[in-house]
């Protein structure tokens, strides 16, 4: 038997939001690894900011040592827990898709800034000119990748990767603003269906704090 004393202690600090940190939360859950889900309020943050090397959240602490940046954290945990493809080439593809997803966030961000009232603008116009083209551009690619991988409900290889989880969450968040946006991408939706059908993930989604993003 493996002693739990041999396992590192994990603490994931983030605001009370899902975002890209949610990928790491689900990696802990999928692997059955205990972790502290440390949610920091906006009020607490100014006093805490100094503590964190890059001055931003999320940060993962592994036995007290900090790793910042949400995707660096996700990659680290994916590697530890086995959600990073079967070989180096598959891992690189998973990373490439995650970077592509970050490009997608950049492209669609101006729509969300308006839709969430952070910036003045016409939401319908932003939907037509920013959101829908960004979704088409990037999800045409993601749909193709899922199909080229054999439509096996994974984007890369034959097992769950951190990118499967990432896209599952993206679809959930964006669908709440723009229902039906992903109807044109059935192979992507099949990946999401497979992730969310895992009992531990299903249970987590039902009980996790409900946040807009």
């Amino acid at each position, binding site marked *: 038997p493996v002693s739990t004393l041999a396992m590192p202690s994990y603490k994931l600090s983030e605001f009370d939001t899902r975002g890209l940190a949610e990928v790491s939360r689900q990696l802990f859950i999928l692997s059955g690894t205990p972790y502290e889900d440390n949610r920091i309020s906006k009020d607490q943050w100014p006093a805490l900011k100094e503590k964190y*090397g*890059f*001055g931003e959240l999320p940060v993962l602490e*592994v036995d007290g*040592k900090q*790793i*910042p*940046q*949400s*995707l*660096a*954290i996700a*990659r*680290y945990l994916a*590697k*530890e827990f086995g959600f990073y493809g079967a070989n*180096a*080439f598959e*891992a*690189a*593809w998973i*990373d*490439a898709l995650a*970077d*592509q997803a*970050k490009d997608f966030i*950049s492209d669609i961000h101006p729509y969300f800034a308006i839709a969430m009232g952070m910036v003045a603008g016409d939401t319908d116009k932003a939907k037509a000119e920013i959101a829908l083209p960004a979704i088409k551009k990037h999800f045409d*690619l993601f749909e193709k990748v899922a199909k080229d991988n054999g439509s096996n409900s994974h984007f890369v290889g034959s097992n769950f990767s951190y990118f499967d989880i990432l896209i599952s969450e993206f679809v959930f968040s964006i669908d709440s603003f723009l229902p039906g946006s992903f109807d044109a991408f059935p192979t992507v939706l099949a990946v999401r269906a497979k992730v969310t059908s895992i009992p531990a993930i299903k249970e987590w989604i039902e009980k996790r704090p409900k946040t807009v993003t």
Partner: protein
Amino acid sequence: GVSQATEEKKNMSPVYKFTYFHGRGIGEVARQLFFLSDTPFEDVRLVGEEWMKIKDQSPWGHLPWLEIDGKVLCQSFAIARYLAIQFGFVGKTPFESAMVDALGDQYKDYWNDMKPFFMPMYRQNMEGMKEEFEKKKKDVGEPARDKFYGILTKEYKKNGSNGHMVGDSLTWIDLVVVDHMGVMDHYVPGFLDGFEEMRDLQKKVNANPKLAEWIKKRPHTPQ
């Protein structure tokens, strides 16, 4: 026989073909990793209209992409990380690799912050661009610089100011940061003065003999 040929094929190095613009940008780190590890590669550089002509047929619609025995891999940092793992430029532990990754992601955030400044920066000597350049430098460039190089300075000091951002070996983030410093030195001399630790990193990384050799012999482009 057949099994011997299969063994030989398995032991043969992969054939690498790297396609990017004729420039350094986010592609240069891959080229440096090939050269530093004495790995032959085909260095395809697209000029003029060549990219626009093939963009729609390209694997993911952007540059760079890498072919490894004909298998395609896209996204500059996924490529850099893959090559760095093959050739030993990711630090010595999973924790170190994660810190290299985190700095890479922070660099990308910095790049996004700087984007509104880059175009006026490249065009600063064109008719009428000087004022826009100065404005964007003050409003965009300097805050983005202070934030990013502030983080780098803190990490470099924490790591012992030993010529590396992470651990005690050259990693792909050292190459990315130092190459970019060279670009900024070219376009905005003095922009990075005052970041003494970064100048120390730059000096020590550029003193790497193999890197110095590449810098001398590579095609010369301002960025």
